[in-house]
């Protein structure tokens, strides 16, 4: 309780302080301090709630009224606590990072707004997961969307930013409308009814109504989470926002979609028919594969990361979807495993994606560009950033012993249990999902070889990259914090998984007693299908690292370090133009998946007027077909414009016409209101 009050107070103080002190170091400091203390308190609150107390039970705060007479209610249970930890962890890193990162904005853009809205966003995220009735949930949801909108709009003099912000706000409000409808149906019209009451109400609804509610919830939460095909705002909004805001949005804000889906589908509705899980699983698999495929073709570092968010949301949904399928067949142990995998990947993705965005922000800070083709050689100039980015890349590529591996392994385990499903036509979905998940992981690894290699290795491709310098202390500290979190989460699944088991225990007919996993240092899945121990793998890796110098010592290798050009190939000098580019790296995959990308190529060669053996310049341009923008959103926009044109005719500008509207409205009202 004290922690809760501390958290709210700190955020509010941070927001007000940022508005008061405004531009300059004082404003930055106050905003960051408020956000850091607030998220620290939130993190502590989540951890104390989730840690088993003396009785072995989780601390659950009873429902409490937030402000008298407003009907706002908060409650903290396991699921809330888990997401509160994510908000706290990422919030802490983002607050630290923002202190130095926002110096670049001083004098150019409004620091007041940036600092205040960051605190408001963190506060609303923390309240979001604790909301205990639909009214609170919706109000805070809107506060979260709007504060994120302001944050995206920080660089408000760029057309691209404004466009991205408009897309974001339009999409999120489409989702919001669905959520309002969903909660109205679910609560029987009384938005102030507590979630406990709604749970009872939901059980009594007809199956058709439950289906409608589920579909509305899926649509509403998917727009926030960025599930294909509702993902289009992600690659627009994330790159234009300040990097720490991108980290927060990608790491936490889109996770609220996952939280909402779990809260409604698993907690309030309980369970549903098999096809609910099927839809979630399918949407997840499609998002995962398409997300990573589009990411491969991106050469803007932050857009690339944004597409990876789509991919990882997909992976999370694969876990949750498989959990829902098992749940509806009554295979509760496997269901728990699926949900645990999804949740585990949620926190993991939050950690490594925030880390990667912060790393990209440092690169942006140093080179003033986010185009990968203009980077290179940064590992020598920014070693800490490069190392942290490498850890993040390895984690997102699901390499052991980092956290991405642990959670994807659990999701695989859950999917591999699919043969337990009695119906073969459903069971066959599982191996397909396994295949798609495997493809995704492989492509993600390829993509991050590109991202890391082109950005940090080789020689600088532009003057700015050559002059880059390491990020300031607070930014480095934030990145190291998240890198440590990635390692820790990866090495300790034997602690995380039981904790997550407790988080979801009791929700949606999952057994009250959390499924016991055999937990020594190794991790067993309940069906005994496989076992692994990231801890041992980590220890093994350390041992291997130690072995290399030992072997070298044994073989009496020459220890002298030679400095030379890498891949010199006998040339006299190397220029950046000889380097491998990101486009070239992705070209093989572009060919392989040409059916999907439908690339348009354009090659222009200028010859010397005297002889065509002297080429003056070669211009190569290649673009991929944006399917969703072109075939889904353009018709939608066209329809909206058409309707708007029709409606616009009402606005004739003639005074008499408006008076006629009033008269007609009055007459119709009188005619219809007669009793």
């Amino acid at each position: 309780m004290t922690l809760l009050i501390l958290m709210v107070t700190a955020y509010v103080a941070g927001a007000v302080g940022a508005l008061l002190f405004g531009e300059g170091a004082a404003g930055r400091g106050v905003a960051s301090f408020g956000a850091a203390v607030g998220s620290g308190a939130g993190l502590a609150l989540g951890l104390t709630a989730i840690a088993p107390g003396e009785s072995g039970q989780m601390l659950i705060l009873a429902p409490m009224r937030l402000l008298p007479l407003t009907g706002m209610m908060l409650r903290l249970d396991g699921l809330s606590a888990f997401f509160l930890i994510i908000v706290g962890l990422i919030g802490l890193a983002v607050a630290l990072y923002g202190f130095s990162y926002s110096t670049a904005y001083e004098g150019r853009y409004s620091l007041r707004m940036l600092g205040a809205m960051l605190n408001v966003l963190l506060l609303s995220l923390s309240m979001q997961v604790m909301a205990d009735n639909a009214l609170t949930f919706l109000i805070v949801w809107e506060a979260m969307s709007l504060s994120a909108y302001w944050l995206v709009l920080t660089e408000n003099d760029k057309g691209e930013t404004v466009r991205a912000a408009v897309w974001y706000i339009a999409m999120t409000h489409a989702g919001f409308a669905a959520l309002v409808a969903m909660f109205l149906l679910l609560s029987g019209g009384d938005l102030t009814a507590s979630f406990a009451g709604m749970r009872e109400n939901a059980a009594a609804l007809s199956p058709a109504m439950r289906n409608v509610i589920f579909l509305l919830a899926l649509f509403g939460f998917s727009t926030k989470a960025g599930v294909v095909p509702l993902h289009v705002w992600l690659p627009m909004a994330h790159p234009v926002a300040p990097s720490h805001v991108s980290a927060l949005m990608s790491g936490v804000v889109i996770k609220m979609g996952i939280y909402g889906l779990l809260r409604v589908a698993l907690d309030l509705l309980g369970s549903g028919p098999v096809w609910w899980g099927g839809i979630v699983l399918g949407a997840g698999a499609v998002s995962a594969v398409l997300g990573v495929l589009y990411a491969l073709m991106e050469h803007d570092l932050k857009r690339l990361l944004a597409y990876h968010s789509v991919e990882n949301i997909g992976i999370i949904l694969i876990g949750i979807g498989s959990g829902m399928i098992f749940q509806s067949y009554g295979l509760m142990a496997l269901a728990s495993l699926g949900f645990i995998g999804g949740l585990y990947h949620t926190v993991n993705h939050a950690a490594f994606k925030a880390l990667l965005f912060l790393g990209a922000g440092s690169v942006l800070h140093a080179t003033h560009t986010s185009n990968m083709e203009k980077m290179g050689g940064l590992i020598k100039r920014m070693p800490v950033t490069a190392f942290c980015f490498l850890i993040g890349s390895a984690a997102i590529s699901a390499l052991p012993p980092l956290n991405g591996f642990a959670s994807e392994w659990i999701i695989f385990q859950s999917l591999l249990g699919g043969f337990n499903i009695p119906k073969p036509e459903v069971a066959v979905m599982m191996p397909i999902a396994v295949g798609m998940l495997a493809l995704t992981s492989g492509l993600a690894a390829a993509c991050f070889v590109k991202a890391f290699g082109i950005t940090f290795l080789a020689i600088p491709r532009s003057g700015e990259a050559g002059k880059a310098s390491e990020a300031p202390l607070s930014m480095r500290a934030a990145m190291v914090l998240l890198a440590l979190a990635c390692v820790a989460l990866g090495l300790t699944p034997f602690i995380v998984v039981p904790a997550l088991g407790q988080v979801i225990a009791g929700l949606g007919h999952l057994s009250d007693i959390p499924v016991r996993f055999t937990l020594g240092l190794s991790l067993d899945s309940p069906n005994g299908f496989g076992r692994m121990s990231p801890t041992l793998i980590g220890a093994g890796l350390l041992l291997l690292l130690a072995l290399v110098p030992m072997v070298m010592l044994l073989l009496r290798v020459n220890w002298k370090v030679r400095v030379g050009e890498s891949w010199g190939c006998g040339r006299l000098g190397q220029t950046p133009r000889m380097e491998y580019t990101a486009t070239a790296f992705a070209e093989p995959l572009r060919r392989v998946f040409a059916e999907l990308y439908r690339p348009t190529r354009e090659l222009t060669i200028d010859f010397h007027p005297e002889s065509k053996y002297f080429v003056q310049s070669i211009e190569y341009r290649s673009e991929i077909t944006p399917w969703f923008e072109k075939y889904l959103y353009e018709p939608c926009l066209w329809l909206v414009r058409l309707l708007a044109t029709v409606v616009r005719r009402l606005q004739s500008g003639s005074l008499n016409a408006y008076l006629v509207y009033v008269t007609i409205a009055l007459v119709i009202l009188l005619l219809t209101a007669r009793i």
Partner: protein
Amino acid sequence: MNDHDTLFAQLSTLSASLVLLFGIALLWRRSLGAYIKAFRWQSLVLSLAFVMIGYFGHDPELYIIAAALLALKVFIIPWYLTRLQMRVGTEREVQPYVNIATSLIVAGLLVMLAYAITRPLVMVSKLPTRGAIPLAVGLIFVGLFVIVSRRKALTQIVGFLVLENGIALLAALCTYGIPLIVELGVFLDVLMGFLVMQIIVYHISSTFESIDVEQLSQLKH
């Protein structure tokens, strides 16, 4: 029903009909002078109707309201309107959106509509004045129709005032006078609204050199 009530019923229907008739008179006249004159007569009959209702309904407060109504709507507002007309408006309502013959038919239809709408109210009412209620509602519709179908700002103002008269008549017929304080508030509202409109008319006139509201659509872009 005793004689007293019968007389009351007949008198209220008569006065309401007269008030409505002056409202409809607006529709067949073109010059602004005629509009103002019709409004003046209508207001006079309206204040007489208030006196009558006050007498039969035993509510002396209505006498005060009738006096105020007389002062405001028979003298002050018509006087202002005439002054306004001298300044800006020698323009006649040459071409209304709806021509005069059609306007009269529409007015007839509107009164029928008023009867249709108020039927349930009249059926359950036990007031002696119930027969006049549809006429008052009809007057409200006619006032609205004047505003909608005429294109000079001044004629629209008169239409608004007629509409207001209809509301006052309806209130008096249904309730025998709403509380004095409310009635005075309404008067003040009318006066303020009228003054604001007057200022706007000056502006329209000086901007467009005409008081045809058609010109206002130029402001759209």
